[in-house]
């Protein structure tokens, strides 16, 4: 279920390479990311944890190309290409998928229609022929089952009137269909009860593969009980202040984020330390 692990296999292709990334909010100039360095290889699952306001979601937004942020320094390479130079839809077509913390409702647009349009945009970009409605229904059948997406949910308007759990299941279902190379999961566990969390996590784990990298952003370690990360980073005040293996997540759960901040202050360092 958990697929391959690739932490130590340096020969794996570098999927995402973030170097000294600084970003601020366009409107008021507040600096949120203050020099992020992070490398993720194909097959790896990295978790980013951190207290509220540490810059977790900003990182997800900057990587996916959302308006409203300005990158002031650093660069991001995705499969060796300049990610920040690409429009959001090009990033998506190139295989970057963001599972939204708050999936958006689109009234009057059927869930399956939306996803087929989306898949065809991706396929076209990859030089594949567009897929028709019949073949599409066949393609999504198994994936819908995996995420327990009932027929009624598929026919309804995108996310309209969906429960929190249904929205998150829909996100991972979309990810399963679009088959991205890099999946960024932004607070996928927020607002989920334990049953919904299990379904979503099962879906995510089924999508782990040697060709795919995942960046799991979460406030709580709860999700990481289901999705075991290869590497855990702790983000505080716009910097990665600690990196370790999954035991780091447990340590955080036990001691709280205050511990990191206290330790960081004591050591007077911002560099990544522990390595598992």
């Amino acid at each position, binding site marked *: 279920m958990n697929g391959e692990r690739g932490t130590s296999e340096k020969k794996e292709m570098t999927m995402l390479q973030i170097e000294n990334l600084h970003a601020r909010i366009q409107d008021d100039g507040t600096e949120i990311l203050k020099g992020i360095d992070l490398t993720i290889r194909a097959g790896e699952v990295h978790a980013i944890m951190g207290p509220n306001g540490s810059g977790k979601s900003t990182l997800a937004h900057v990587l996916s190309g959302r308006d409203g942020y300005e990158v002031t320094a650093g660069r991001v390479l995705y499969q060796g290409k300049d990610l920040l130079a690409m429009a959001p*839809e090009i990033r998506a077509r190139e295989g970057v998928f963001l599972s939204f913390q708050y999936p*958006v409702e689109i009234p*009057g647009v059927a869930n399956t229609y939306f*996803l087929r349009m989306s898949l065809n945009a991706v396929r076209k970009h990859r030089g594949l022929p567009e897929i028709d409605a019949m073949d599409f229904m066949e393609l999504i059948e198994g994936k819908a089952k995996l995420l327990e997406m009932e027929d009624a949910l598929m026919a309804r*308007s995108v996310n309209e009137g969906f429960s929190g759990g249904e929205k998150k299941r829909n996100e991972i279902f*979309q990810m399963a269909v679009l088959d991205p190379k890099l999946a960024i999961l932004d607070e996928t566990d927020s607002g989920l009860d334990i049953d919904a969390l299990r379904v979503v996590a099962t879906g995510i784990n089924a999508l782990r593969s040697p060709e795919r990298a995942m960046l799991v952003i979460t406030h709580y370690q709860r999700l990481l009980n289901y999705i075991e990360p290869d590497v855990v980073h702790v983000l505080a005040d716009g910097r990665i202040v600690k990196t370790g293996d999954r035991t780091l997540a447990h340590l955080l759960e036990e001691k709280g984020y205050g511990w990191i901040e206290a330790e960081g202050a004591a050591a007077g360092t911002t560099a990544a330390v522990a390595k598992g």
Partner: protein
Amino acid sequence: MSSQNPVLEELTSQEYQHGFVTDIASDSFPPGLDEGVIRKLSAIKGEPEWLLEWRLKAYRHWLTMKEPTWAMVHYPAIDYQKIVYYSAPKTQKDGPKSLADVDPELLATYEKLGVPLEERAILAGVAVDAVFDSVSVATTFREKLSEMGVIFCSFSEAVKSHPELVRKYLGSVVPQGDNFFAALNSAVFSDGSFCYIPKGVTCPMELSTYFRINQANTGQFERTLIIAAEGATVSYLEGCTAPKRDTNQLHAAVVELVALDDAKIKYSTVQNWYPGDREGKGGIYNFVTKRGKCAGKRSRISWTQVETGSAITWKYPSCVLLGDDSVGEFYSVALANSFQQADTGTKMIHIGKNTRSTIVSKGISAGHGQNTYRGQVWIQKGAEGARNHSQCDSLLLGAHCGAHTFPDIQVKNSTAQLEHEASTSKIGEDQLFYCRQRGLSNEDAVSMIVNGFARRVLKELPMEFAVEAQKLLGVSLEGSVG
């Protein structure tokens, strides 16, 4: 969040696709209007004396009237003496005969507009009356329809071949003096479509009229009259386009529908008159009076409109629910982009017992467009058990457009039940980003969101035209951001 998007700027400058001019010799009146013009028009058409008198009565009444100012539309005063009231292709002087006689230049024009007039097998589901400037130039499938007793021809021809029907119903729904523009139309209407579905007949194909304005400075004043006799059913569609010009042109039409006992009329419009350029220069002034009378018991009249064109749209397709248990429906999508102004809505007049009406209005505003919904629901004293449900939704794209709603509800019978729902929303950055993160281009995303917003109305259109209307909505405002 910023409201400006370069893609929006680029895409809202989409070229109007039907803006070409057909180079064809025409016989036109000089500009201007007086009784002489009306007499001349009536003479050209070989009209009976009663119709000339009817026109003159309308004209004299019009002279006493003032242009209405209550609508949320602003435009410089129209000089009615500068308008040409009649213009017809020279080759069409004697009116339409068989398709073989139609000027090839005209056939080519309609082909280019996507409305081929040949009776091809593939288009067998739709009969077309083609109105070019002031006259009808061709009507297809007439023989096939007449086998079932359906009369479908130009208005001028109906005056000659079915004068008793025309005389009985003309002005029976929209009286000559109903309003300023209806009175003007009654005085100078030059042609239009006529349709009669006899008792018990379900019309075997969609009927449609395609209106084309070609000549400069010419007003188009057409009149459509549709009568569905007891138990008859018909679905009718109209489409409209015009060349791109810097000057404004007036289109003032009247449509009258009559439904007798158990008759059903479905009237759909895809209005794509030239909307003017991005600065608001040129475009059609569309002042139209459309009204249906559910005269019979259990009759039903349903209006569906997709209004994407015109510099100004002023129209309120309405239903007079006279017969007991009759039903009126109004489904509308109106779009105002650039400097377009749309003031549109409906009137549902409940007179009979247990009459029901449904109003679904979807207004979309972009650029500097102003979109107004204006609706009246009147429940008269005798309308025991009347019901109405109204839903008015507005969607805003961008920071410079406007949406306005003026509902007017008057109830004089305490057994009536009415509901009114309204909403205003903006296409959000969130929605657009969500779509783009899934690989959709900005323009595809806007088109998808707008079509989703309008879906409830679009699905009321006949299949053949629903697809067309969806594309039109996409082309007309792709790329706007809220």
